[in-house]
């Protein structure tokens, strides 16, 4: 964008159209930002404590695992783990909120009872059951966390971007364009006055010439 535009009527019209466009964009972006913030607060409540809860759960899991490994030996635990045959599945759909792609995860509860796990109950103790139970619970939490935390991260990025754009339009683009159009208008008026005076002068000179001749 030129800072010193030609002071013509055409340029003035162009600048005015640009201002109109910028205002429209500004309004739309503002609405987008508000919608995003609304969505963000809707999810925020759910995600707030999930992180720390998962951390605590994982800690419990790992200490249970350490106990089991100490009791049975690492290879025994490994054996039990090897014979678990039950792959939990998820289904990830991508929702679109104001141009932000947000994952939506469907899952079934992973938690199973003792018999469903697949390793022999005879050869193992409750220590291993505890570990399995703990990790199943952790897995459920992870799946839930995956959805909400990811959504929040994405929303926040988008909010930040949109906010920056809104501010850029409001405080940089629009004032600059307005200054430009004002400048052109002043120049045009100035030129008009200029030519008006010039015409007057010429007329006066012409009149004087006529009087001298007549």
């Amino acid at each position, binding site marked *: 964008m030129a800072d010193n535009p030609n002071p013509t009527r055409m340029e003035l019209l162009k600048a005015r159209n640009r201002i109109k466009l910028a205002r429209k964009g500004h309004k739309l972006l503002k609405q987008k930002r508000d919608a995003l913030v609304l969505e963000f607060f809707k999810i*925020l409540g759910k*995600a*707030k*404590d999930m*992180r720390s809860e*998962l*951390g605590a759960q*994982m*800690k419990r*899991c*790992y200490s249970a*695992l*350490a106990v089991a*490994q100490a009791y049975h030996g690492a290879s025994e*635990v*490994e054996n*039990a*783990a*090897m014979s*678990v*045959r*039950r*792959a*939990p*599945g*998820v*289904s*990830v759909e*991508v929702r679109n909120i104001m141009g932000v*792609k*947000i*994952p939506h*995860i*469907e*899952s*079934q509860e*992973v938690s199973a009872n003792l018999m469903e*796990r697949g390793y022999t109950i005879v050869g193992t103790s409750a220590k*291993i059951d505890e*570990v*399995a139970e*703990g*990790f*199943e619970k*952790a*897995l459920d939490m*992870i*799946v839930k966390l*995956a*959805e909400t*935390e*990811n959504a*929040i*991260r*994405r929303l*926040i*990025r988008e*909010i*930040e971007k949109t*906010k920056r754009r809104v501010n850029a339009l409001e405080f940089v683009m629009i004032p600059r364009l307005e200054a430009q159009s004002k400048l052109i208008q002043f120049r045009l008026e100035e030129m008009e006055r200029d030519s008006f005076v010039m015409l007057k002068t010429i007329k006066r000179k012409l009149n004087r010439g006529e009087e001298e001749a007549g």
Partner: protein
Amino acid sequence: MAELREKIAVIGNAPTVTGFRLAGIDSFFIADGAAAEEKLATLLSDTNYGVLVVSERVVEGADWRLKKRIEATAKPVVVAIPDMSGGIEQTESLAFLIKRALGFDLMKKS
């Protein structure tokens, strides 16, 4: 259920993987450091997986290009979890991001 097609994969060190195998996960990769990053990069473009459970240390140690990809892909979803030696402070934690985006700390009061 037929509709739950996508799998959960775990990338991490041995104890983490053992634990999650007890929970029934059958896609697991024992890896650390650069190897884990590589694995993560390949799994990111695999649509058979819905959720990738990755050790925090791997995500934190990844270079910015990979981090950006994690941030940009909606599927599979990457979840960072603490490993056996305990959690580490994530530089891009939620509280930090929220504070930067909204201008005040929402998570603080609880």
